[in-house]
């Protein structure tokens, strides 16, 4: 039941926060913090309660499983399970959830209760995505997480929010539809073979498919995940959505929602369709490398802080895609680290962008005029730190992710990896350009700017700590993920 509670606590918190919105005071924020902290404690207890299965290689990689009937007539059940991979992602979701509640403490002043309802509902949906192993249930949560996100951007967003939310919604919804078609088709094929209609991941794993239909079904899944990731050329919703989202929305979007795409790629594509995925690998790896370089180059030209960071996300997610399709231990571990590192570093950059916007009422780098360092040294130093994390400085988390991905990808395709390494140069160009434009230079006359206060410093300090810790000691995460990734690789070898 713990798994159900993991989803139920944020949902309950969401409803409570909405109700508390009617009272004066920071009740919705406190309720949201409490719910997420409780959930985080629950998730952490899972880590500690299962040290044995984590340590034993070759053991079943699932830590816990919950199977309740839902719509038995169609073979649909409430099948939740958690392994190291899911657990890491759930932890990341909850940490970033806490961060985004704290980051929107002063930014969000309108309809506070409803804001936190949407925030927590999205998080509950995402956690559901990470835990659900019934494909129908997975799709259900996949949709559940979108709608509150739609409101988060649409109600509390910036200037162009109507356009952005619509774009976000159409992209994700259309691609989700393709996935639904694939899910249903896969279940039907499985039924024709085994006589049992089931949407369970475990039942569908061994389904044998004709090569053509396998490729088609895989594409259905792949497109849904690729749009979410996002992969070039399906990335254009992301900069718009990020630019117009409130800080918390951006943090959740970059830190968690994109990761649901990465998670889907890891969990479903290769295990369900090993041959089709292998056949498709060269195309995807090429697209991944294009994404790494293209995202970086476009980021360099942006004049909007958040838009720039959004394009860096696309570049970073290219590494994730590269790693997933390289499909060996190094690369997959790299993907996991990269997912966490990107969630933290990009999330922090969005918080900084939000802090700047709150103070200066603009996101345009040109209008910031630079020179912020002399006015707000803490803010600038933190910004510099996360820009450096973003460019993959060794000793910080992103480097571990990128290095492992490249090391794994090198074993699959040396040429592609060499081109991807050029992404490091591009990353240096855009990250330093961002620092130069935002923080360096001479401050305009008469510009007054408050430095980060204690609340912001705490949030960002925790994130800095995590990024450094992961950069010099990634082993706990690697150990946690190892059995799960091992299990996935064995599935794909059947």
């Amino acid at each position, binding site marked *: 039941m713990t798994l159900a509670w993991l989803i139920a606590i944020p949902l309950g918190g969401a409803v409570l926060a909405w109700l508390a919105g009617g009272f004066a005071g920071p009740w919705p924020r406190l309720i949201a913090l409490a719910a997420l902290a409780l959930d985080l404690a629950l998730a952490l207890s899972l880590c500690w309660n299962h040290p044995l299965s984590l340590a034993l290689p070759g053991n079943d990689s699932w830590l816990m499983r919950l199977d309740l009937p839902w719509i038995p007539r169609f073979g649909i059940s409430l099948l939740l399970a958690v392994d190291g991979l899911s657990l890491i992602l759930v932890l990341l979701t909850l940490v970033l959830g806490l961060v985004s509640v704290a980051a929107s403490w002063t930014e969000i002043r309108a309809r506070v209760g409803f804001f936190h309802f949407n925030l927590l509902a999205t998080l509950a949906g995402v956690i559901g995505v990470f835990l659900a192993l019934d494909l129908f249930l997975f799709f259900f949560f996949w949709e559940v997480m979108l709608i509150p996100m739609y409101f988060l951007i649409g109600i509390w967003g910036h200037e162009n929010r109507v356009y952005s939310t619509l774009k976000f919604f159409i992209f994700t919804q259309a691609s989700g539809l393709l996935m639904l078609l694939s899910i249903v088709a896969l279940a039907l094929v499985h039924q024709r073979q085994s006589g049992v209609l089931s949407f369970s991941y475990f039942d569908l794993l061994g389904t044998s498919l004709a090569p053509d239909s396998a490729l088609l079904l895989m594409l259905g899944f792949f497109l849904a995940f690729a749009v979410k990731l996002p992969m*070039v050329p399906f990335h254009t919703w992301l900069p718009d959505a990020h630019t117009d989202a409130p800080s918390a929305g951006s943090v959740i979007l970059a830190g968690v929602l994109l990761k649901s795409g990465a998670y889907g790629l890891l969990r479903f594509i290769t295990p369900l369709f090993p041959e089709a995925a292998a056949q498709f690998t060269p195309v995807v790896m090429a697209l991944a490398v294009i994404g790494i370089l293209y995202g970086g180059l476009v980021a360099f*030209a942006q004049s909007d802080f958040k838009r720039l960071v959004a394009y860096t996300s696309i570049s970073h997610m290219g590494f994730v895609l590269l790693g997933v399709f390289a499909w060996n231990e190094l690369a997959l571990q790299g993907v996991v680290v990269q997912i966490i590192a990107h969630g933290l570093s990009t999330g922090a950059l969005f918080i900084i962008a939000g802090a700047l916007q709150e103070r200066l009422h603009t996101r345009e780098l040109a209008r910031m005029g630079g020179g912020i360092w002399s006015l707000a040294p803490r803010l600038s130093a933190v910004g510099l730190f996360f820009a450096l994390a973003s460019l993959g400085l060794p000793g910080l988390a992103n480097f*571990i992710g990128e290095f492992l991905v490249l090391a794994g990808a*090198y074993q699959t395709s040396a040429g592609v*990896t060499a081109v991807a390494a050029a992404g490091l140069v591009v990353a240096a*160009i855009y990250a330093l350009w961002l620092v130069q434009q935002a923080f*360096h230079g001479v401050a305009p006359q008469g510009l007054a700017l408050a430095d980060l206060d204690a609340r912001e410093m705490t949030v960002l300090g925790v994130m800095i700590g995590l990024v450094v810790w992961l950069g*010099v000691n990634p*082993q706990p995460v690697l150990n946690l993920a190892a059995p799960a990734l091992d299990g996935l690789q064995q599935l794909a070898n059947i």
Partner: protein
Amino acid sequence: MIYDALWLVPLLPLIGFVCLTLLGGWLSRRAMAVLGVGSVALATALAFTIGYTFLTRPPATGHCTEVIGSWLAVGNLHVRFGLYLDALALVMMLVVTGVGLLIHLYSATFMAADSGYRRYFAYLNLFVASMLMLVLADNLLLLYLGWEMVGLCSYLLIGHDYADPVNGRAARKAFVVTRIGDAALLVGLLLLLAHWGTLQIQPLLGLAAQGWANGSALATVAAALLLTGAVGKSAQLPLQVWLPDAMAGPTPVSALIHAATMVTAGVYLIARLHTLFELAPAVQHAVAALGALTLLLASCSALLQRDIKRILAYSTISQIGYMFLALGVGAYAAALFHLMTHACFKAVLFLSAGVVINALDEEHDIYHMGGLGRQLPGTSLAFLTGAASLAALPLVSAGFYSKGLILAQTWNAPGMGVWLWTGGILGTLLTAIYIFRAFFVAFLGRPKSHARCGATAAEAVALVVLAALSVTAGFVEIPAGLGGGVQAFTGLVASALPPGPQPAHTGNLPALLELIASLTAVAGVLTAYYFFRYRPPAATAAGAHPITAAVGRLWQSGWGFDWAYERLFVRPLVMFTRANRHDAVDALFTGIAAGSRALHRGLSRTQTGRVRWYAAGIACGSFILIALMVLP
């Protein structure tokens, strides 16, 4: 054992960095200086203690290893925080801590007026820690960590005065250009990892030496990638363009990072991985050729600079060219020896230049100086010592012994040794000319400006020590041709590096070569004296001819590399990204949206509100439908 404390050497400056960063707000400037200099001083003391132990009671195997902890372990890949100390690492460690300490000391008063005092010391401490990590790392990933971190510190310190966008641009240029090399280095690491399954340097070299045939394609590719990394970091052709611009940073930074230590990391890398380069003779020849070419081109550029720091910057490029030349012919000890002496004399040149610049209110142009010898006698003497050492004036300068060793071994190198030697000799001549041009113009003659102040006590200490070293550091290695036959340095590093090319001939040849080198250096000084002191109009006249003027402009602009790169890479890239600011891919989707909107507008025009029009539409539709069904 004292070796067990090795990990404290990089850790102490790191602690200094962390304290300065976290506690900075509560510290007085004095406390900052104490913390910044003190942490490095402790590390230096420890390093020299370890060095002393190493010399008196060397470890049995010639090296010692210390593992602090594990970094990451995935599958077969195990990377640890491990330190490896052998003679090569020891020399580098002593250079970094020694020169580093003196420059910290110098900075304590030199930067006193700077508003970013805490930031400066924090970055400088971080640099020393990273550089030590680089030279002590026992695996390539940790080396890469140090490699990138020193690049970062270089970026941060060049752009220390962030108010001026020019500094920011120079800093970014330095970081991005070196990162091109770094990316190649990383790919090289991946190649080595993929083939040998480890990044531990010593086991890796052992495996590669056994597994790869001499001159095999993979070894060549790996060595070429590593070379690209080294070339980027050490500002050799064709990635040398960042170093002259890097002089935008504070002068002590130029001395420490862009002369004495960081830029020599490439030399260290090649020396450390010399086994791989020996497996790829083509690449090793390229190292020598690149070195020779770089030293000549950079010397020519240095001849015509007016900014004193740019003269020294080009001189650094050129001197590292010597080291590459030595590495390329297998004279690793000679390269390392020159690295050491160069760190001393280049540091003293930069630091004395810093005093001058400070005294003249940020005046960089040597033609606006003059007569400083009388105003700032001590500083001028220090500069002269450094200049003599750089020019390799015979017998009394450290540079003479190190450069002489390089030239002697280059001559002995098989193949194109003689040509490379000729290049080296030509470089010696040019070196003597350009550095003494600077000296004669800036320090002798009629005073053109008033020196505000001299060196402070802390600055003076640094200058004196370094000047003394630029004279004496060479005496540890006196060539047989001069009768001394002292081989303390090569003897020390013999445990870590193979001996250089041995002379094929004996007899008077070594002595003759020394003589030629000495005479060349002296000739260079005399040439400089003639043109810039005795008869300056001659120099003006020589530069007035259209051809020499054109050549001069070319040389002064660093052979037009910046010009070409600007047009070949920077502008197309910027133009492409500017043009694509709104993301061309989005046009695909906005196109779909616009198409459906246009369709909507077209179709909504049919909604006229006329009932009969609709009826006609229905009739047409049924006509067409029936036609489709009836007609085959």
